[in-house]
C-alpha cells in the first residue's frame, strides 16, 4: 500500500485554506549545486509551496534564452544527475512537507535508464516529474514505472490543446500544468490568451488543481492569473535574478537571499 503523494496533500491543504500554490523554478547547478541548495531553502522559507528543479540540458529546444543560459552555466559547473538526486534527498529530508518536482527533457530520463531513474528519484524524495517532451502519445513507456514508484507525471496543457484537453485532464495527477501562452519559456509583458475562456474550458472537464506557467514576470501578473487557477509557476524571472547576481559577481549566499526576496515579493512571505 503506497502512501499518499504529498502533491495531493499540499493542494488539499491549500484549498482548505482558500490559498493559491506558488511554485518557483530553479535550474539545478546554476551557478553550482551548492548555490542551488541554498536558493531552494530560501524559496521555501519565503513561502514557496512546491519546488520545481530544472535538470540542465545541453540543447533545451523548448526553452527561451534565460533558461538556455542557466542550463549552460549549470553544465559548465559540472552538474550531473547524481548531484541533483543527492541535493534533493537532503532537501526533502529537511522539508518533508514540501513536494519536490523535477522538470527535465525526456532524454535525461531515458538515457539514465527509466527504472534506474525512478528508483533514484524515489530515494531522493521526488514527488513528480514534468517532462515537456513526453506527450500522452508516448507516455506508456514510462507510466508503469512512475506508478510503481508513486511518482506523478505532471500533465501539461497549452492554448493549442483544444480537443485534446479532456483526454489530458483525465490522465492528469497531482496538478495540471497550464501553459498560458504559445512559444517557449520566458517572461512576457502580456498574453494573447483569454484566461477566462482557457481556464473555463479546463474547469468544465476536470476539477484537478490547475497551475499556470510560462511568462509570469511579476506579482501583479501572478495575482491576475490566480483569479482563474489554483497556483502559479515562476521560472525565468527567478533565473533572471540569479543571472543578475552572477553578473554582479556576488557570492552564493547573496544570490540565495536575493532570490528569497523575489519569492517573498510573489508570496507576501506567507507559507500556507
Amino acid at each position, binding site marked *: 500500500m503506497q502512501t499518499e503523494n504529498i502533491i495531493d496533500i499540499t493542494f488539499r491543504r491549500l484549498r482548505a485554506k482558500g490559498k493559491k500554490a506558488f511554485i518557483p523554478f530553479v535550474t539545478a547547478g546554476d551557478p553550482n549545486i551548492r548555490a542551488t541548495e541554498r536558493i531552494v531553502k530560501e524559496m521555501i522559507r519565503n513561502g514557496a509551496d512546491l519546488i520545481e528543479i530544472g535538470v540542465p540540458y545541453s540543447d533545451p529546444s523548448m526553452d527561451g534564452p534565460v533558461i538556455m543560459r542557466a542550463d549552460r552555466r549549470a553544465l559548465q559547473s559540472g552538474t550531473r544527475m547524481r548531484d541533483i538526486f543527492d541535493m534533493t534527498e537532503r532537501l526533502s529530508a529537511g522539508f518533508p512537507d514540501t513536494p519536490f518536482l523535477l522538470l527535465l527533457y525526456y532524454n535525461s530520463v531515458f538515457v539514465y535508464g527509466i527504472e534506474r531513474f525512478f528508483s533514484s528519484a524515489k530515494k531522493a524524495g521526488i514527488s513528480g516529474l514534468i517532462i515537456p517532451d513526453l506527450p500522452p502519445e508516448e507516455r506508456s513507456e514510462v507510466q508503469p514505472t512512475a506508478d510503481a514508484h508513486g511518482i506523478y507525471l505532471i500533465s501539461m496543457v497549452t492554448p493549442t490543446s483544444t480537443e485534446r484537453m479532456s483526454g489530458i485532464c483525465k490522465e492528469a495527477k497531482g496538478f495540471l500544468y497550464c*501553459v498560458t501562452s504559445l512559444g517557449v519559456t520566458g517572461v512576457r509583458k502580456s498574453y494573447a490568451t483569454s484566461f477566462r475562456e482557457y481556464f473555463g474550458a479546463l474547469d468544465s472537464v476536470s476539477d484537478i488543481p490547475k497551475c499556470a506557467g510560462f511568462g509570469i514576470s511579476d506579482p501583479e501578473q501572478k495575482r491576475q492569473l490566480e483569479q482563474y487557477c489554483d497556483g502559479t509557476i515562476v521560472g525565468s524571472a527567478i533565473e533572471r535574478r540569479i543571472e543578475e547576481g552572477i553578473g554582479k559577481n556576488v557570492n552564493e549566499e547573496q544570490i540565495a537571499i536575493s532570490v528569497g526576496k523575489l519569492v517573498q515579493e510573489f508570496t507576501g512571505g506567507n507559507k500556507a
Partner: protein
Amino acid sequence: MSENKNGRYGPYGGRYSGETLMHALHELEKAYREAQSDPAFTGEYARFLREYAGRPSLLYYAERMSRDLGVTVYLKREDLNHTGAHKINNVLGQALLAMRMGKKRLIAETGAGQHGVATATAAAYFGLECDVFMGKEDMIRQSLNVYRMELLGATVHEVTDGTATLKDATSEALREWSRRVEDTFYVIGSVVGPHPYPEIVRDFQRVIGDEIRAEMLEKHGRLPTALIACVGGGSNAMGTFYPFIGDPYVRLIAAEAGGEGIESGRHAATVAAGTIGVFHGMKSLFLQNDEGQITPVYSISAGMDYPGIGPEHAYLHDIGRAEYFSITDDEAVEAFEYLSRTEGIIPAIESAHAVALLKKMRSEFCRDDAVVVTLSGRGDKDVEAIGRYRGRIH
C-alpha cells in the same frame, strides 16, 4: 513497410514533442494522409517535380570512373535539379501541403544552406513568407547560400547557441514554430523530427529511388548491385534506398561524416559512435554522453554536421538491411577533387562522402557489378571552402 501508424520504426521514431505542437503534428498528419490519396495533390506535385524542379534527374553512366575503379558506376544526378540539390523534391511537396492547409508562412532550419535555399525558392514561387534559421558557423561556411536565400526574399536568422550549426538551427526552428504555430508551416529538411516528418520527407524523396529503379531497368537491364548515398539526417539516402528495401540483393550503403576520424572525437558519425536517445522529437541514435547530453559534432560538411540520424535509418541499421560507414574530411575532399577531374562534375562535399565510400569499397565489387551513387547536390557552394582547405584560397 517498416513503419506503423504511430511513426515507429522498430524502437525508433515516435512523436516526442511539446504539447504546444502536438495539435499541429496531428493536423499535419491528417492533411498529409488526405493529400496522399487526392489525385489533384499528387498530380500537381508530379507536375512541379517535372516542370519546375526539372525531373526526372539523369542517371548518368560514369564511364571514366567505371574504367578507373573497375566497377560499373552510375551517378544519380540530383545536383542537376533546380536549386542544385535533392532538397527541392521534399520542399515542393511540403510547400504544396502548406498551401493546402492554408498556412501563410514557411520556416526552415538549414545546415549547408541547400534546404534553406529550396524553401526560400518555394516560398518565393507560392508567395509565402519565409524565415530560415541557420547556425552562425554555417553562415560563415556557406555565405553564398545566405545571400541566395535573401535574394529569394527570405529572412535568414543567425543562431549563435551551442555549436552554432545544424542542430542549434533545428532547435531554434522548433522554438519559432511553437511561438507561431497557427499560421506557420515548419518545412523540415531531412528524415528527422517528430512523426509524421520522417515519413513525409521520405515519401517526397523516394522519387530518387523510384527513378533509379526505372532508369536502371531501362539502361542496364537489371537492378543495381548496390546503392551508395551520403547521410547526415539521411533524406537523400532514405529517398534512394526506400524503393529497394524489399529487394534483398540490392546492397544499401550509406556514408556518414567521419570528420577528423572517429578516434579523434571530432566527427558526426552517429551510427558508428552513437547511442539510442530522444532528441528533436524522435527516438533514434545520437552522439551523446552517458546522461543524454548531446555532444558537439564536427564535419567539414555543414549538411552532415548533425548529432543524430533519421529513425528509419537507425532501424535499417539495426536489422542489417542498410550498411553505414564513415568517411573522413580528407577522404571526402580527395573524392571531391577526383570526381571533378575524372568526370568533370563538381559534387557537393556531402555527396563527395558517397563517392569516397565507393572508392574505398571498390574491392568488394567486380567489373559487372552496377553501383549507383547518388550525387545529392552540386559543389559550387563548397568550392571556396575546399580551396581554403587546400590552401589555394586565402
